Every structure is written in C-alpha cells, then in structure tokens.
C-alpha cells in the first residue's frame, strides 16, 4: 500500500530527496488530513504538507496541526525508561523497568487483591491501543478499576445521546454536508478555537445564507458573526434549551408527524417546558427575551438545522440533561436522520469517539457493550479467551478513582496517554491522591506533570511512529500511518501493555505482532455491538476515505447517516428529555461573587504536554490569562495586562488580565492548558454529573482580587 495517497489532479509539493506519508493530525477530533514530509536519506520527519484531497478538511490545518510534526523528533522526548531513585529519574533498561513493575504489581496484588491496581487511560491514541487498554486492565491485570480521561471530555455527550437516541455516535450526519444546512444552533462551543478546521463548513453554509445561533458566555469568533448570540450565564444551558423548546411548541414549529411516529415523552416534555416562558428563561439565563424569541423563530423556521454542542454544555453537573435537551430540540423539529440536518457534538480529543466505544470506560466493553450486562460479558470473555467469571465488575469514574487512591484502595496506578494532574478538576487534591500511591507507572513521550510524580516512566511513541485507526468527530474510522521508526528505545503503548501482561503471566492473551492484529480482534469484539467495526478493514478505509461505523457486515459500506429509520433504543423511538433546570454544583456568594469558566485557546491542546513544547505555539500563547469585561475591570481597578489573583475554595492562582468586551460582565474565563501554579484546574469544581460522572469544569464561583502595590 502506498504511503502517499492523493487523488488524480491534486498537486502537492514534493521536494527532492523527500517523501510524503499520508496520515492525520494527532490532536483534536477533527483529525485533519495531512502528509508528513520525511527525508529519505536520514529518515527524519522534516515538515508537513497539506492534504488537499482529504474529504473533511481539504488541506486546512490549525496552528497546532501545522506544527504537530515538531513533537516527533523533539529534544524533550523520553528515549529510555526512567526509574525514580531517591527522588531523581535515572535512565534504565526496559528489563530493569519491567522487573520493577512486575515485582511491585504482583506484590501489591498478592497483598491487597487484584483491584489494588488501577489503570487510567486516554483517548488521544488509536482504537487499537484504546481497545487494548481495556483488555490489559481486565485480562492483563485483572482489575476492575479502569477509567479514562474521556470522562472529562465526552462522557456527558455519550450519556445524553444514549439516553435520548439509544446510541452514542458524535454526529448523526457526515460533516461534509454541513454546507447545505440552513441553521446551526451551537451551544457551549468555541468552535473557531477548538476545532478551527470545521469553520470552513460553517462559513460555506453561511455563504449560502445559513443562519447561525450561538449560545456562549463569551463572544467567540463564531458568536461574533452569529445572527443571534445567546450570551447565557455559564451553567444555564438546560434552562435555555427548555426555553427554546417552549417557544418552538408555542409557535408550533414542531414536526408532529415525526414526533408521533418516532419519539416518546412529547406530552411530558410539553408540560415541563410550559413554565419556561421567555421571561422565566431570560431571568435564569441572563439572555434577553428578544434574542430568545428571535433564535426560536430562526431555528423553528429553518427547513434543515443542526444542533451542535461541546464541552461548554457538557462539562456541567447537568451535562447529560443539557445534551438530552439540546438533542430534543432537534427531535422536536424532526431533524435527526435526514440530509444536512441532525445533532452533533464536537469531539474534543483525537480519538474521543473511538476511544469511548471500546471498553476503556469503567462500565463498558468493546463495541459499546456494558460490563454489567451478562450477555455482553459472556461474548467478550469468549473473544478474549477467559472465563466469564474472571471478567472484573464495573469500576468507578476517573475522578472517583482519586478518592480510592486517597483511601488506599487503589495502591498502584498505570497512566497511559493522559496527564490527570493538569486535566482533572481540583488538581491540588488530585496531586495529593497520586502522591499517596505506593507505585505509579506512566507511559508518555514527554515528561508530563503526571510523569514527574511517577516511580517509573515508560517511553511511549508519538502518533507518527505507530500505525492504527482512529474515529473522527463524525464517526468516520480513519487510518493513521507509521511515518518513522520509534525514537530511541521508545515503544508503542500496545507493546508496553503486552510486555507488562507477559510479566503478569498473561502473555498468552496478548500475542500481537502488529496493530493490524489488534484491530482484527477489535472487529470481532465489537461485532454485534452498537459500535460495530466488524466490516472495517485498513484497505476499506483507504478506498472509501474512511468508513462510518456501524459496519456490521464485511461487504457493508458503512453508515454515514444514523437513525434514518429508527433509533437505537429498545423500542426504536427517541426519548425526548424531560428535565427541569437545576443550579450548578457551586453558585456565587458574597465571598466568591463571580462566575468562572474555563476552556481552550487555539494554540494549545488539552493539558498542553505536547503543545507547550512547540516554539511557535508558545510564542503566541506562553501563559494563561483571565478574560475580564472592561466594566468589571473598572470596578476592581484592573488594567489590561495587570496580574490579578483568582481564588476559589480549592485553590488560588495569579495570572495576567486581558480586558475585552467579548465576555459577560459577571464571568471570567481562563484557559486550562498549563500545569502546577499556572493551572486553571486548581480552581475548578469537582462536582460530578450524577449520570455521566463528568466534573463541572465550566462553572464555579470565584473571587477576583487586584494585587495591590505589585506590578
């Protein structure tokens, strides 16, 4: 198979002595297509070339994508295993590191039981690896305690979709169709900064006259050009959605035929939304009635509309409610399962979609199966070649694992592809919990803040040094190619898990020589599940420009639209959400009078472990800042660029102020990509959604202070 895929008539620049390898970006869920330039003589990565013919992104890239290749051959890369001796990391051999892990893991398990080891996964890696993390935890280590950083990212969307539609595929339609949409309703998504390459589709639609409604406490780049900007108070999405639905019903924009044949709970929904009059909604959300009405009319009259939401709506204690309510808005209009219309969430992490389908979650098994379901347990046990009773039970969610560490129930942890001391809420507590562990192993290719706490750091490879598949924002399974050989002694995560499993005496269950074999096992494991990958092969992905799951048969071409005929619920009908508005987990009071919300900037990705090491990105955005409305800044006497102090009951931080009218007067915004004293997550609230166990990163109460007599 050729390493460089390009359609006829597409011209790319190929410099003499270089070759191009076709792959996708390592960062967000857009998984933008790109070619990586490799010097043929030295076999080193030298740059990037746009992939003009990739169907979703057309060669477009954000600054992170353009510079992504710089992390491959980066001087900070860990090239050999590191073992901490007397508080210092010493380079060692794989043999030595594995010996240590074996003795510690086996020792702890003998003494405290199998569940004394936890596994903390991540979804910025391929499906193969994500799948194997689940198997590694349950078969290799035999522990029930496994969860992953997607708990901070996608679990509310997953919960909401499962509740209303019965299946969680991030987007019900292929995004290449978005340009034909008439109206976008975007909630809690700073699309322009978090998924920049998706903007081309929204702008194309706008070129054709589409309307844009954006709900966000900040006037983001998308809100700036929106027809209606619903500048809601953080944490009031459920009231907003109920309010809009109230208006939809009042003005009879409801698709009654669709509701009658395909949805449950309409009467209950009508009853619930009755009290959300514009006046009442406006009182809760802080959005003027006029705007609500205008938004409802635009949304209600648009023949084709897409409701989209992201972490702003999901990272709340009522994230699942918000998702189900927004989804219900689309259902009321009868939009799901049709051309250029539907509902979609913006997947944050590279493989946030695929990673949550294949058993990295505490309660899930491959193919979106449930670990609590005896049938599912039996099937997967058979695929894995173990007894059903050997399969551990359901564990706990990511943040709750830290409670168990503090309580000494989890005594050792293996972190794979994640940096929880930056990305978790209330990180001061998380750091303490990790420090209380007896033994911490971290796989990473840079020494992240979490790796710094580890006893053993195992050198993993970057995305370009291993092959595999990921599932992008649309639910399209795509292929990541190996560009260069691993640097130094680093190994791909699947190989590391395999080596440890061997040491744990479970080598027979991990006989893989290459990722393709893992994928073949994943295909069988997911067969018959909701996320059915059975019919996907690497070759099919290349031929068809990615394959949309579910693909139940070998000769099946994939499913770009889902829910065209029926929903994936038991009765085939969608469940409209009936949820009242609830207050956020933490509300403002006289001590903490302002709202704090966190988010991303375009230059950094998640915990910043990769992007904080790239020159261009650090030049453009070296440190966190707090966005303050000039009126609020005036009250506190704060000048632009002045350092201020933010505090919540959980932590304190100092950072420079950026004054802008493009934010609500009662809300502060801080990006979260930094660690330690620069981390916004010292402040954030760990209140969890009762259903998805997602922490409430997006809403907490905060105190703002001017640092007097200091510059």
């Amino acid at each position, binding site marked *: 198979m050729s390493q460089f895929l390009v359609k006829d008539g597409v*011209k790319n620049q190929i410099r003499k002595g270089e070759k191009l390898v076709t792959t996708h970006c390592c960062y967000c869920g857009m998984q933008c297509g790109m070619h990586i330039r490799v010097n043929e003589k030295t076999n080193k990565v030298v740059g990037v070339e746009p992939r003009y013919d990739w169907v979703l992104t057309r060669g477009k890239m*954000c*600054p992170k994508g353009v510079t992504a290749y710089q992390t491959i051959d980066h001087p900070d890369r860990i090239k050999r295993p590191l073992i901490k001796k007397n508080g210092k990391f010493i380079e060692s051999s794989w043999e030595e590191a594995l010996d240590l892990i074996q003795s510690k893991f086996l020792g702890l398990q003998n003494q405290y039981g199998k569940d004394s080891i936890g596994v903390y996964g991540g979804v910025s890696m391929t499906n193969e690896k994500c799948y194997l993390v689940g198997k590694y935890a349950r078969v290799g280590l035999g522990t029930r305690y496994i969860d992953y950083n997607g708990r901070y990212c996608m679990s509310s969307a997953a919960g909401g979709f499962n509740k209303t539609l019965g299946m969680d595929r991030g987007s019900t339609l292929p995004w290449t169709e978005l340009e034909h949409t008439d109206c976008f309703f975007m909630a809690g998504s700073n699309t322009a900064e978090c998924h920049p390459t998706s903007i081309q589709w929204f702008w194309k639609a706008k070129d054709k006259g589409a309307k844009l409604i954006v709900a966000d406490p900040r006037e983001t780049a998308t809100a700036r050009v929106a027809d209606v900007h619903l500048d809601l108070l953080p944490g009031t999405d459920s009231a907003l959605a109920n309010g809009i639905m109230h208006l939809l019903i009042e003005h009879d924009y409801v698709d009654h035929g669709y509701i009658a044949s395909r949805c449950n709970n309409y009467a209950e929904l009508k009853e619930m939304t009755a009290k959300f009059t514009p006046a009442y909604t406006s009182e809760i959300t802080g959005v003027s009635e006029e705007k609500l009405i205008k938004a409802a009319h635009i949304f209600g009259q648009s023949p084709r509309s897409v409701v989209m939401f992201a972490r702003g709506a999901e990272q709340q204690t009522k994230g699942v409610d918000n998702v189900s309510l927004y989804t219900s808005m689309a259902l009321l209009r009868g939009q799901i399962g049709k051309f250029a219309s539907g509902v979609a969430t913006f997947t944050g992490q590279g493989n946030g979609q695929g990673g949550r389908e294949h058993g990295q979650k505490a309660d899930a098994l491959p193919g979106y199966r449930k670990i609590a379901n005896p049938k599912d347990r039996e099937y997967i046990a058979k695929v894995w070649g173990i007894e059903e009773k050997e399969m551990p039970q359901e564990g706990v969610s990511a943040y709750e694992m830290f409670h168990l560490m503090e309580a000494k129930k989890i005594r050792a942890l293996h972190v794979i592809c994640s940096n929880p001391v930056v990305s978790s809420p209330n990180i001061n507590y998380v750091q303490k919990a990790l420090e209380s562990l007896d033994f911490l192993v971290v796989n990473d290719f840079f020494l992240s803040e979490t790796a710094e706490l580890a006893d053993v750091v195992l050198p993993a490879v970057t995305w370009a040094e291993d092959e595999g598949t990921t599932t992008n924002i649309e639910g399209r399974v795509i292929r990541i190619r190996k560009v260069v050989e691993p640097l130094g002694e680093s190994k791909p995560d699947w190989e590391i898990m395999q080596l440890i499993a061997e040491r744990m005496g479970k080598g027979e269950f991990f006989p893989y020589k290459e990722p393709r074999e893992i994928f073949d096992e994943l295909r069988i494991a997911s067969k018959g599940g909701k996320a059915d990958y059975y019919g996907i092969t690497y070759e099919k992905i290349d031929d068809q420009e990615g394959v949309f799951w579910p693909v139940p048969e070998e000769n099946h071409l994939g499913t770009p639209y889902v829910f065209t005929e029926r929903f994936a619920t038991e009765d085939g009908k969608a469940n409209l959400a009936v949820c009242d508005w609830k207050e956020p987990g933490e509300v403002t009071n006289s001590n903490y009078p302002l709202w704090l919300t966190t988010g991303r900037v375009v230059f950094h990705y998640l915990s910043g472990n990769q992007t904080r090491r790239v020159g261009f990105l650090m030049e453009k955005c070296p440190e966190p800042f707090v966005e303050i409305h000039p009126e609020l800044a005036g009250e506190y006497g704060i000048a632009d660029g002045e350092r201020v102090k933010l505090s919540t009951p959980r932590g304190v931080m100092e950072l420079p102020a950026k004054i802008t*009218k493009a934010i609500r007067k009662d809300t502060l915004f801080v990006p979260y990509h930094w660690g330690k004293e620069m981390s916004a997550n010292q402040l954030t609230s760990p209140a969890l959604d009762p259903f998805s166990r997602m922490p409430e990163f997006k809403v907490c109460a905060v105190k703002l202070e001017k640092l007097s007599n200091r510059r």
Partner: protein
Amino acid sequence: MNKIMYLEFERCIGCRACQAACRECGDHDAKERNYVDYIDFTESRQTFPMICMQCKDPACARVCPANAIQITEEGVVLSAMEEKCIGCRNCTFGCPFGIPKFDFEKNKMYKCDMCYDRTREGISPMCASVCPSDAIRFIDFDEMQELRRRRVQMNLIEGKKPMEGNKWEYVPEFFGVYSDS
C-alpha cells in the same frame, strides 16, 4: 491562467495557522512573513490576516537605496536580495501596508513572497492552503472578479449604493496578481 490571493477579513477566526504554515515554506527560514492582528481586542475578537499585495509598482522597491527588491517575471515582489540589502529599513517605512519585516541580527529584510517555490508550480501557498476559514484564498482571477461582483450586488440590495468613487472600498481587496502561464 491567473491566480491571485484573495482576503476576506471578516472570515478570519484568528487561529494564526497561516503564520505557523508560513514558517514551513521554502526559504522562509522558519520565520513567518505574514500577519494576523486584532482590530482591537478590548472591543472584539475580530482579527485580520495581512499579506503582501505584490504591488505592480512597489513602493518598497522604490525607496530601497540599494535597489535590492526585485520582482519576478510572474509579478512576485521578492524579499530584498541578501547581498545588496544594506539594512536601512526604508522599505518597512515606505510600504503603505506595513508588510516588510526586518531581521536585525542577520541584517536582512524579509517579506511575503507568496511561497514562490509553491506558486511557481501552481500549488497554493501554505497560508492559503491551511487557512481554516478561507479568509486567505488562492483563486483564479475570474473567480475573484465573481466574488467582488457579488459583494457589490449585495450592497445594492442592502440599499447602500456605493458611489462611483468609493465603489471599491466596499469590496474586499485582492492581493498579488499572479500568472503561471
């Protein structure tokens, strides 16, 4: 076939991918030559990209005492020739659009050259290739004329008829006539 760079400022989302991409071009020495600025961050998040217009009669070349700024046969205004440039920076002050940059260490001026190594081959320059919002585009001259025409018509619909004298102020500028015959 004429290809030109076309900018639409209000599409810009301020991601600066164009700047990161500019560093990737041949002979750009890992330094960006284009700009993305805020109009006024205190007021709004509106940003705008700016690249060289590749003037037909460039002021920068006219104010250069060393005659160091050359124009290629395709019409691309190149950076000052390194051997001629005496480092006076007249070009940065002469340019009506504030484009040329100056490297004090290496004593040389550098400016947008439309990724000469790419456009010479008919391949879109890096900034236009990666721009996620299509604020920077590399399109046919005819397509640009079509876009401009549409903008003028739109203004007529809006009832804000431009006068003959200021008609072109109402449509986005096009940058850098380029032919690769």
